[in-house]
């Protein structure tokens, strides 16, 4: 029934598109078109709020990060740390004192100047006892914050924290103005190149250009920008074809991507993301508490088949909680490769010669449902019965799986970059506890040498690949579909974002 509904919508939009197209063709000889200065960016899911410092949803950052809010540092499109509101910094030789030189002349959208007191307020708010910052643990190593003058910020750390500058570039670490901090959820005020103008709940968020933007090195071309939220991939496709939306940086359905091939109007740009699809297991619950069982399940999985069936072959198999574009990546897909016979033998060794049955709590998203069905078929080959229970994401999934850890197995795409440390967190929904692994991650933070850090990251990946706390499946690609004349969007996604600073229309 819904199929018919959405198809009638498609054809209606199609007709509208034709009519509009005809109008443009007719009007073209008479109108000397001025360069377009508005862009509409499509997103699949609407964020619940607009303050990235209090909410964990990646969609918040995808609307606000670098557009409305900026941080002391930032992460560029290659995933490298760059200075932003901090012009430069010094790190003491022992790695425990960071002295930031803050940029002068930066003003928030409400006219308040940015200085060291604002930076101190932001960091204190993020690390305070009643902080709800989604990445609160990133600020825990800060011992004291000093502000000798308005443009200097000195952080004294409890222990060296090698990733601090990287973390400061994250959406959760953006600078907020003390008087507006409480209202940022609905009325965000930052220092970025765009000012928040309105939010029509359920439909779109509108931004307009910040005329007084501090960074004169970039020329922001867009006068206005909107984020439109469209859940259904069919409707996304129709909106793109009709020109209602100029770009879908993360298009929802890989199987529809081929329909844009050969389009004169739309470009298909497939890039990297940090979206790691992993089937987490409850490591404290039988039979998943037995490492052999987890390894057997991993060997029962044909990753190539999962990628092909769930995501139309657009994805890269992974052997650990790490993506090929992360620093120090090791290809560990060969540690427990697809091997039904070995999987059966290992399962028998673990005391389950006749298999067992369990429940998979799978969110409703297409990738999760499809991957689950393929896993179900693969596990059946080694005699393991998996029942699929659809668990609504985010609300029910967050409550049942993430918070309560009341599950056997689940499947979800982890969006944050370099988040291998989630396996060291306690509590976390995997219930995976390995002091050896935690020690290696501590070494990463204690080190300031990049090569050494990469080596430790490699060791951490190897431990996970051997222990299999979760079934590591694949990395999703970024399926960008946008108007060929729209330039400046990021091809890859080193951090979930839609940075509009350099976006412009080619004439």
């Amino acid at each position, binding site marked *: 029934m*819904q199929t018919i509904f959405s198809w009638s919508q498609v054809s209606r939009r199609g007709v509208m598109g034709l009519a509009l197209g005809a109008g443009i063709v007719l009007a073209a000889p008479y109108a000397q078109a001025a360069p377009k200065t508005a862009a509409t960016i499509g997103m699949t899911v609407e964020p619940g709020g607009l303050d990235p410092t209090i909410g964990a949803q990646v969609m918040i950052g995808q609307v606000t990060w670098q557009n409305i809010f900026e941080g002391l540092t930032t992460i560029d499109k290659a995933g490298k740390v760059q200075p932003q509101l901090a012009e430069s910094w010094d790190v003491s030789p022992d790695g425990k004192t960071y002295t930031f030189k803050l940029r002068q002349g930066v003003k928030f959208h409400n006219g308040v100047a940015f200085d060291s007191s604002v930076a101190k307020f932001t960091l204190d708010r993020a690390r305070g006892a009643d902080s709800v910052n989604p990445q609160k643990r990133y600020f825990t190593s800060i011992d004291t914050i000093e502000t000798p003058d308005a443009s200097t910020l000195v952080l004294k750390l409890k222990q060296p924290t090698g990733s601090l500058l990287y973390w400061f570039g994250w959406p959760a670490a953006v600078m907020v103005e003390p008087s507006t901090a409480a209202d940022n959820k609905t009325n965000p005020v930052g220092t970025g190149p765009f000012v928040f103008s309105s939010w029509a709940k359920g439909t779109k968020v509108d931004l307009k250009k910040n005329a007084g933007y501090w960074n004169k090195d970039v020329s922001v071309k867009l006068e206005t920008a909107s984020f439109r939220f469209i859940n259904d991939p069919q409707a996304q496709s129709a909106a793109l074809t009709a020109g209602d939306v100029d770009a879908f940086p993360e298009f929802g359905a890989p199987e529809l991507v081929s329909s844009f091939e050969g389009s004169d109007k739309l470009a298909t740009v497939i890039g990297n993301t940090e979206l790691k699809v992993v089937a987490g297991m409850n490591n404290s619950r039988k039979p998943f508490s037995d490492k052999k069982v987890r390894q057997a399940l991993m060997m029962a999985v044909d990753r190539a088949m999962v990628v092909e069936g769930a995501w139309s072959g657009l994805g890269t198999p992974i052997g650990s909680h790490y993506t090929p574009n992360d620093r120090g990546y090791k290809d560990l897909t060969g540690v427990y490769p697809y091997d039904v016979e070995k999987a059966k033998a290992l399962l028998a060794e673990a005391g389950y010669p006749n298999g067992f049955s369990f429940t998979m709590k799978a969110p409703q998203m297409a990738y999760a449902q499809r991957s689950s069905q393929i896993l179900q078929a693969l596990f059946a080959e080694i005699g393991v019965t998996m*029942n*699929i229970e659809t668990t609504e994401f985010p609300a029910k999934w967050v409550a049942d799986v993430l918070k309560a850890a009341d599950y056997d197995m689940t499947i979800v795409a982890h969006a944050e970059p370099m988040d291998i440390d989630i396996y060291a967190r306690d509590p976390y929904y995997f219930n995976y506890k390995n002091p050896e692994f935690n020690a290696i991650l501590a070494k990463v933070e204690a080190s300031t040498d990049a090569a050494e850090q990469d080596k430790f990251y490699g060791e951490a990946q190897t431990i996970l690949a051997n222990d299999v706390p979760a079934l590591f499946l694949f990395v999703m690609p970024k399926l960008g579909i946008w108007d060929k004349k729209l330039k400046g969007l990021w091809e890859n996604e080193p951090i979930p974002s839609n940075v509009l600073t350099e976006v412009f229309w080619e004439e």
Partner: protein
Amino acid sequence: MAGIFRRPVLLIGLVVTLALVAVALFSLVWTPSLPSKMNIVQRLKPPLGPGGLLGTDQFGRDVASMLMVGAWNSLSTSFLAVAIGAMVGSAVGVIVAMQRGWLELIVMRGCDIIFAVPPILSAMMLGAFLGSGRFTAIIAIAVFMVPVFARLTLAGAKQIWARDYVTAAVGIGRSKAKITLVHILPNISNQIIVQVTIQLGLAILTEAGLSFLGLGMPPPAPTWGRMLADSQTFFGQAPWLAILPGMAIAVAVLGLNMLGDGLRDMLDPKTNAG
């Protein structure tokens, strides 16, 4: 029975329904291949090709096998739901007709309330309580079948209660329960049978709707509704994935509706004068 050939609606309905039941039963003993067997290499193969008679889906499963097992899943779920609904509803109807008075008022208003809630909505609420699955689907459909049969049997039974032979039976001191069993039920059974057939078509449609929304039988059991839901984004590449289960649902509902209409015409004493 010879009259059946003079009733094309009934004939077509009967043939379609019997064919459907035959396919459903047959799927229990034989399908071209295992419906849950995935073969990614052979994914999205069109009908009449290497992928089998009706092609394969996005996981390389055989569509013909899925449709066959889907027919069984759809029919059995719908039949159970309608059977429960018909039994409970008819029992309520005849008991109310027996008692009348304030009971009739309460039960009829209760029916109105159930009628006012769309079955899909009530199924979603039930799903939240019971968890989605076949049991939820059966209960959800049965719940909204109950008032249909309750109303039908109440109206029919009231008419019979007014007949002279019933009054006579009351007069000689027969108990109300006995009269209901001996006189009332046999006289309204035709109406119930016709209604069951018509409601079956509706139940199949509702079951497909629930499966479409993920509230029906969970995977790997194939259902027509979920096949339709899963095929949405593949329509450009593999239109048969949407067309085939869509046709299956349409033909099943059409067949049962024609059978119901035909039966009504045949069994109704007014139109069956000849």
